[in-house]
């Protein structure tokens, strides 16, 4: 009896081990109720909400852009095109006049009016997630059913970019007020004007949307009849699911599985540059990293080739700036610190640490741990003892948010408008607030450049301001820039029309299956 139990226990242990490693996924009733073209995609995490004002992440953006429209549409190159707004222009320095398209109907049949636009923007301004994006809009005046004036504090290009953000999706006033009066939330019945109509959402598992046959813009109308996006956190199981046809698309694949995928003739890899940059940020607001020589010394210890090999399986590219190369506002014309341990050692001595030093690196989740480990080994060669502390996201941002870290390692994605890319990271007012000003670097010069860039209307001039910020930041070595990631979308060979934008946000409307 006892022996049997032990055998069973051993077997159970083995099974548990294999199962937990394989991260098996259940639910294989994919082709249940299909009429027309039905596509199933996998993402590494589920969306947060169908309420555009209760989320601000890439997965949710994809879902929001399927069900809703924004006034202005940012295309894949992040250029602005008419969305629900047919046209927009500044009538004076503080007034943006918007004309919305005629004959647009919500999924429940009610027509879109300027009342809905006013309601949506005002509701967004109260949101903790995306409220700041439209905070420069002071008031909204309805001229007629199709025309409205936005009164803005400063007429920068940032307002247009804000209106193109997924958080600025236009809701139906009547519908949302009806839901809220019943004590329900938008997630109970999301209604928009978008190319897809909400069908179902099982939190943590998957959501399904179906084609909107009456979509107002032919160019952006949905091609597939039904799309399901499933949350599959384990990349290995996504690969297996792709190979056996359980899913058609993997929206976000890890570089470590590319070899297997490329060896499979039924799968295609779509590679794209992202606006991401992985970097270590020195806390310049306190010793020892208020010492610029020390920061520069440690900058020379970043071996980008090895980081690319280990951390990104040979994909991606080295980066020396402060944002990803495909982000708006990026410049390669910065102070570059190439891997050079001799220079590092000399500068370290100059900085007053001839015998090295020890410090703690806060790492945002184990995703970044390989990059940290490579750096640690190189630092050791010049006598610098760095301990790694892998933290979960919440704890990490609590730490950077109160400027308690010594050095912090994480990534940053560029936004369509450079103001939202640079401001959170470099505005000195945000040191110790929100946690995105990782370097805690106080520079009046940068602050004034940020301010000038915010009110400047000429985009070319604005970009110059941001280039200058990059130059000042690298000169002072506030970051130790490492690499920029590539993104990978995996398609089964009968799928086409999947293109991400520069932010890695994918739109569902172009997807087709043959």
């Amino acid at each position, binding site marked *: 009896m006892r022996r049997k139990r032990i055998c069973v226990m*051993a077997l159970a242990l083995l099974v548990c081990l294999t199962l937990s490693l394989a991260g098996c996924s259940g639910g294989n009733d994919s082709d249940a109720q299909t009429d027309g073209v039905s596509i199933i995609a996998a993402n590494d995490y589920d969306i947060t909400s169908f309420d555009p004002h209760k989320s601000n992440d890439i997965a949710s953006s994809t879902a929001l852009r399927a069900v809703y429209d924004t006034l202005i549409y940012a295309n894949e190159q992040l250029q602005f095109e008419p969305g629900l707004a047919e046209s927009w222009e500044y009538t004076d320095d503080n007034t943006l006049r918007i004309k919305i398209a005629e004959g647009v109907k919500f999924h429940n049949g009610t027509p879109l009016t300027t009342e809905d636009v006013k309601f949506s923007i005002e509701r967004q301004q109260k949101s903790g997630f995306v409220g700041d994006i439209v905070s420069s809009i002071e008031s909204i005046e309805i001229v007629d059913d199709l025309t409205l004036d936005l009164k803005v504090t400063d007429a920068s290009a940032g307002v247009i970019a804000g209106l193109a953000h997924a958080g600025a999706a236009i809701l139906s006033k009547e519908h949302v007020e009806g839901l809220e009066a019943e004590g329900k939330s938008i997630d109970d019945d999301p209604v928009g004007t978008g190319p897809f109509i909400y069908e179902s959402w099982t939190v943590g598992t998957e959501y399904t949307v179906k084609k909107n046959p009456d979509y107002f813009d032919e160019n952006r109308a949905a091609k597939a009849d039904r799309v399901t996006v499933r949350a599959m956190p384990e990349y*290995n199981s996504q690969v297996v699911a792709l190979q056996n046809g359980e899913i058609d698309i993997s929206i976000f694949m890890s570089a470590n599985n590319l070899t297997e995928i490329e060896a499979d003739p039924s799968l295609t890899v779509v590679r794209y540059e992202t606006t991401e940059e992985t970097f270590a940020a020195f806390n310049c607001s306190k010793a020892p990293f208020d010492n610029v020589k020390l920061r520069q010394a440690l900058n020379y210890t970043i071996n980008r080739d090895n980081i690319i090999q280990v951390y990104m399986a040979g994909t991606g590219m080295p980066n020396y700036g402060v944002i990803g190369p495909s982000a708006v506002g990026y410049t390669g014309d910065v102070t570059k610190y190439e891997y050079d341990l001799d220079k590092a050692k000399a500068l370290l001595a100059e900085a007053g640490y001839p015998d090295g030093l020890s410090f703690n690196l806060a790492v945002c989740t184990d995703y970044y741990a390989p990059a940290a*480990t490579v750096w640690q080994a190189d630092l050791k060669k010049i006598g610098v003892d760095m301990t*790694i502390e892998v933290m979960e996201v919440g704890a990490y941002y609590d730490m950077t948010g109160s400027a308690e870290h010594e050095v912090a390692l994480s990534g940053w994605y560029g936004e369509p408008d450079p103001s939202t890319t640079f401001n959170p990271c470099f505005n000195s007012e945000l040191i110790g607030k929100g946690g995105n000003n990782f370097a805690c670097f106080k520079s009046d010069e940068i602050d004034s450049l940020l301010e000038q860039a915010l009110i400047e209307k000429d985009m070319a001039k604005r970009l110059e301001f941001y280039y200058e910020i990059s130059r000042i930041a690298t000169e002072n070595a506030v970051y130790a820039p490492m690499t920029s990631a590539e993104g990978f979308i995996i398609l089964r060979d009968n799928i086409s029309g999947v293109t991400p934008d520069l932010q890695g946000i994918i739109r569902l409307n172009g997807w087709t299956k043959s």
Partner: protein
Amino acid sequence: MKMSSLVMQAVTGSAPAVDLHVYKKRTQFGEVWRRFRRSKGAIVGLIIIALMLFCALFANFLFDYNTEVIEPNYDEALETPSAKHWFGTDEFGRDVFARVVFGARLSLYIGLTSTTSALIFGVLIGAFSGYIGGRFDSIVMRVVDVFLALPSILLALTIVAALGPNINNLILAISIANIPYFARIFRAEVLAIKDKEFIEASRALGANRNTIIFREILPNCLSPIIVQASIIMALAVIVSAEFSFLGLGVQPPTPEWGCMVAGARKFLLSSPYLTIFPGVAIMLTVLAFNLVGDALRDATDPRLKH
């Protein structure tokens, strides 16, 4: 049936030379050992534990920690198992065998220290609570109940999350989470024995409370505690692997089995051996302690003497 025939064999085997009427004295330890080694599983478990202990003690002589265990060697990254690298190499080009061997040191260290400290505190709490009894006992046991009501993993998770992830906090968390179990078991033993005649006799001889607890009660209640310790030991190895897997325990580049499994998970399809070897090491260690614990329980149970 089988058991009795075994005994018969043993008796007849030793019969010719020995006078059966002579009383042969066996120590308690000898008796337990005699019964313990009858279980094949226990012997297998002991061998595995001995092997792991050997790795843990002599890891330094087998591999150089700095150059072979933590230093990257990018030219040899992700190699399959070979004569040079028995378990292959990871994405940093580090030898997985060397890391698994050093991992044994860490896992056993975490397991032993956390189990020992939980045992010491648990036994002390259980002994005093059981022996003193009355209101003191009620209060202490209610506190123990509160801790028992929380799942031990959850409790340990909370402790590590509050104190920050590193080896010492992990050990602290595992031991605190397991103290109530030792306390409960030991208190039950104390209650069963504290009114026996030999305790009364020693009290009559003038022994004070501490002498009675440590000289009389403790040696007579040890066996269930040892059994429990071996089970907690297995649990501690699993919990430390789990926590490191979740990034709440050991930090890179230190080789810890759970850490290694977590780091290698992304190579599961391309280089499965990276997860298999540390995974098997965890499994074998846990299995060994469970086998030994199981056999010990049977060997120390007087009702299963023959």
